[in-house]
Each structure stands twice: as C-alpha cells, then as structure tokens.
C-alpha cells in the first residue's frame, strides 16, 4: 500500500495541472464567448464577419489539430508557447467558439419589448445591453456555460499529447511504472467526476442566486 501513496501523489500533481488548465481555459473561453458572441450581433459588418470566421473555424476543426498548431506550428511564426500556455490557448479558443453561440442565442432570446422599453427610457445601446439585456441573458446562458466548462474539463486530457503532465498523463505514467491499469485509471475517473460535479454544483448555485425573484425567465 505504501508505494501507492507516492503514485497517488503523482496523480494529484496532475490533478492540479488539470484544474489549472480548466480554470484558465474557462476564463479565456468566457472572454472569447462574450467578445465573439456580441460581435456577431454588432452593427458593424467587419465585426460580424470576423466573429463568424472565428466561430466556424474553431468549431469546424478538431481540438487536436488546434492544440498541435498552438504548440508545434506557432513557433515557426515566432510565437513559442509553453505546453501549459498552448493548452490554455487551444482549449479557451475552442470552447469559446461554442460559448459565443450561446451568448448570441441568449441575447437574442431576450424579448424585443425589453429593447423597446430601453428606447422609450432613452437608454443608449451600451446602457441597454449592459443594464437590461445582458443581466437577463446571463441567466439563460449559465446552464449551457456549465456544460461547456465540463466539456472543457474533459478536453484537457488532450494536452497529454504535447507532454503536459496533467491528470491523464500522470495516470499513464503510473500505469507504465506499476503495470497496474485499474488503480490509476479508477483514481482519475473519480477525480474527473468530482471536478465535473463541483462545476455543476457551482453553476447551479450561481443560477439559483441570480434567478431569485425573477420568475418567468427561469427559477
């Protein structure tokens, strides 16, 4: 049993990397989702075209390829990233593209009458969006954002391909060193599930807090 403590320690080190990737990747994804999602609704054609190109490209190509580009190809253009940076970049941009469609859909789901009330109250575009539309849209986005964050968590395993020692990578190391498959992979199964549950729980709590008193949108 004693030897396993060390191996479990290895996997827990990997878990920290996975958590880091998930957190930083989600922050980048969230930022990209809002920038691209709102740009798709912009009055300006250029903004819409750029956002659409980004979204279609990152949804239409595989996360593997995106990661390999971030890590192996960008250096040819003078941008050398650490494995962690490359992982965060690929995951954030990829999930951000899906998130952008969520933002767009949620903003569009807020009724026309809310925009009209804003005009009648003489709010400008920015005030309407920031004070009236987005707070309502946020509630619509949250559940899907929670799913996206879990997808991102699961996708972090791909970074083991660029030799970043995340949880999956460490499990493979332990398996190679001990010849035992069950223990390391059962361990990471439980850890991934625990992390995903933590995300679900957090998002649901946030949803409940935001929905307080706000019937008709979602409770």
């Amino acid at each position, binding site marked *: 049993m004693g030897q396993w403590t060390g191996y479990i320690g290895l996997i827990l080190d990997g878990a920290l990397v996975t958590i880091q990737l998930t957190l930083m990747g989600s922050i980048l994804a969230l930022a990209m989702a809002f920038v691209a999602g709102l740009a798709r609704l912009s009055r300006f054609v250029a903004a819409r075209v750029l956002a659409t190109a980004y979204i279609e490209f990152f949804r239409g190509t595989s996360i593997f390829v995106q990661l390999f580009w971030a890590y192996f190809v960008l250096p040819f253009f003078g941008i050398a990233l650490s494995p962690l940076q490359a992982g965060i970049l690929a995951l954030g941009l990829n999930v951000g593209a899906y998130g952008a469609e969520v933002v767009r859909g949620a903003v569009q789901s807020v009724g026309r009458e809310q925009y009209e009330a804003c005009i009648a*109250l003489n709010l400008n575009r920015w005030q309407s969006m920031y004070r009236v539309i987005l707070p309502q849209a946020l509630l619509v986005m949250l559940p899907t954002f929670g799913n996206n964050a879990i997808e991102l968590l699961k996708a972090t395993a791909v970074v083991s391909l660029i030799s970043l020692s995340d949880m999956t990578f460490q499990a493979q190391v332990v398996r190679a060193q001990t010849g035992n498959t069950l223990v390391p992979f059962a361990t990471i199964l439980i850890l991934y599930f625990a992390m995903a549950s933590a995300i679900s729980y957090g998002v649901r709590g946030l949803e409940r807090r935001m929905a307080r008193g*706000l*019937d008709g949108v979602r409770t």
Partner: protein
Amino acid sequence: MPSPMIEIDKVCKSFGEFQVLRDLTFTVAPGEKLALIGPSGSGKTTILRILMTLETINAGHIKVDGDHLWHKPANGNLVPADEAHLHLMRAKIGMVFQLFNLFPHMTVLRNVMLAPMLTKRTGRKDAQSRAMDLLDMVGMADKATSMPAQLSGCQKQRVAIARALALSPKIMLFDEVTSALDPELVEEVLNVMRKLAAETDMTMLLVTHEMGFAHDFADRVLFFDGGKIVEEGKPDEIFRHPKQERTQAFLRKIIAAGHRV
C-alpha cells in the same frame, strides 16, 4: 393659439407592401389630452410607436416641441436624424405599453430609478427620493422592494407609469394600457391617469377601448379607420353624435361588446 406640441404632417408608413398610415396629418396642442380610437389594425399603435421612435416613417414630417423628430436640420436642409438627435427627442417623450415591459431582473424601485440615473446623471439619492414620490403617487410605494414578477398586472402597469414619469417627459403615450388587465382592477390604473391629467400639464396621447374613460379624460377624440382619420371632435360630439357612418358602426359594435360609453 400656442404652437403645437406635436405636428404630424402627411406621414406615410408601410410594413412591406402593406400601407398602415396614408398621408396622416394632425396636431396636438401643449397639454392636450387626445384619445385615439378605432378598430383594431387601424394603425393607432403604429402612430404611438412612431412618436416613441420605435418605428421609422416612409414619408412626411413630424415635429415634436418645435423640433423635427425623424429629421434634423443641416446646412439649411433636412437630413435623417442620427442617434444623438433621437436621444434629445426621446427625452421629451415617455411611453406606457400594453404589456408593461418592466425590467424583470430589478426591483420596482430600481425600475423607476434606472433611467434618470443613466440618462440624466441624477444622483442615487435624488433618483431614489423622486422614484419613491412617483411610486407614492401611483399607490405603489409599499411595493418598492418587490420584484415585478410578484405584482399583479394592474400593479405592474402603475409601476410602468411611474417609470415613464421619472424622466419628466413633456408628452406621455399610453397604448391600451388597461386592455391586458383584470376588468375589476382597470379602475385603479385609470384613477392614476385621471390624477395625472388633473395634476400635470403634460400632453397625453391615449389609445384605448375604454370609451367611457376616453369620454371623460380626453379633450379631443380622433376616430381612425384604415390608417386615416375618419372623424375628430370633442368627446361629446364623437360619442353622442357621431356624424360618420363608420364611427357610428364602430361605436355600436363596441357597445354590443359590453363596453360602456
């Protein structure tokens, strides 16, 4: 005679192929209470929405408080209004909607305070005390901390009236503000409007199917059909002695439907 508060001059409005307003022309005097009545689909809502700049016009001119609404003068010519000009014009006009359109994610008080704080840079304290005064006037002060979802339709509408008043508009537009309400509670909203008419010199345009209310409330009534004014006059003339066949038919139908005139 003072210069009009609203001048509508040969305004045309189409949705696609369908022409809603044809060469519509009328004026509204400052402080006048004007009721717009007519069958559904005759373009009454469209007129209010155009005045609130929620719809554009296809032809004609509109002046509000002496300034062009949809145009602005530039080097002696009239050019289409830009956002900045519309912003100035919207400050003069408030609108109350049939379905209230309150902001569901804010308390009643925040609903009323928001626009003055954002568009007039009113300080929080001043905005709050003014909002409380207005809520008091509409009988909703005790619900200031409630969320809109906790209110009845009639309460929501009274909050919506307070919210529109918070910007101190010169003109108020009411679009069938009681038609989505429980018939027993309609009076509560109508009482607020009576009080408003008695205590302020705001110009008010009222689209309504409450003929009894229109009769007491309005200085003048316009009867619309097919995007045109068919008949206009003092409430007594329109409701007691309508001259036009179409006005008579409309009023007969309204009475048959159980509305009191």
